[in-house]
C-alpha cells in the first residue's frame, strides 16, 4: 500500500460542469502525477508536480488544470467537463525523478453525460 487515497472513487456529472479530483499521499513523496486510462491507450500523463506549487504539463493536458498547495495533496480540475473526458483517472507518486518506481492510487472512475 503506497498511502495514496483518491477521492471520489466514482463520479457522474454533466457536460459543462466543473469537476475536481483529489489525490492525497502520506509518504511525503516529492513527485505526483495525474494519468487518465482509456481502453486501447494505456495510461497517458495529464500533469505532474515536482514540488509544492511546481507543476508541468503532460501529454494530454488540454482541458485540465492542477494545483499543489501542500506536499500531500494534488488536485486535478476539469474546468468545464466534456464527454471526451470520461475516463478512469489515476494519481501516482514517486520519491525522486528517475530510476524509481511510481506508486498508484486505485483510481477515480469519472463519467460525463
Amino acid at each position, binding site marked *: 500500500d503506497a498511502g495514496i487515497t483518491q477521492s471520489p472513487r466514482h463520479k457522474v456529472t454533466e457536460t459543462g460542469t466543473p469537476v475536481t479530483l483529489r489525490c492525497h499521499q502520506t509518504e511525503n513523496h516529492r513527485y505526483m502525477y495525474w*494519468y487518465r486510462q482509456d481502453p486501447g491507450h494505456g495510461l497517458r500523463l495529464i500533469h505532474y508536480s*515536482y514540488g509544492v506549487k511546481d507543476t508541468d504539463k503532460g501529454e494530454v493536458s488540454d482541458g485540465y488544470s492542477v494545483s499543489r498547495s501542500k506536499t500531500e495533496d494534488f488536485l486535478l480540475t476539469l474546468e468545464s467537463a466534456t464527454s471526451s473526458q470520461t475516463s478512469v483517472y489515476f494519481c501516482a507518486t514517486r520519491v525522486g525523478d528517475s530510476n524509481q518506481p511510481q506508486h498508484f492510487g486505485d483510481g477515480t472512475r469519472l463519467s460525463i453525460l
Partner: protein
Amino acid sequence: SQQGEEDPQALSIQEGENATMNCSYKTSINNLQWYRQNSGRGLVHLILIRSNEREKHSGRLRVTLDTSKKSSSLLITASRAADTASYFCATDYVNDMRFGAGTRLTVKP
C-alpha cells in the same frame, strides 16, 4: 502517444505454464518498468530495469532488456490463477514515463 507497445494484447494459459510478454519502444530510455493491474485497481510496480542492464530477476519474474532492438520481455514462470491481470511496460526518460496499452493475461486453474 504510447512509447511502449506490448505484445500480445491478450494471453491465456493454464496454471503452471510460463507466460511471456514483450514490449517494444521507440526512443531513448533511462529505464523500463513493468507494472501489473488487477481489475478495478491501480497499477502495482513489479520490476525496474535500467538502460545499462540486460536482465533482472524478482521471484518468479524475469525481465530482459535489449536496447539495440528497443525491446523488453517479461517472463512469469510457473503461473498461478492469481497472476491473472493486465501487465504494462513503461519507458522512463527524465520525467516522461510512457505506458503501453498492456497485455491481458488470463491464467486458468
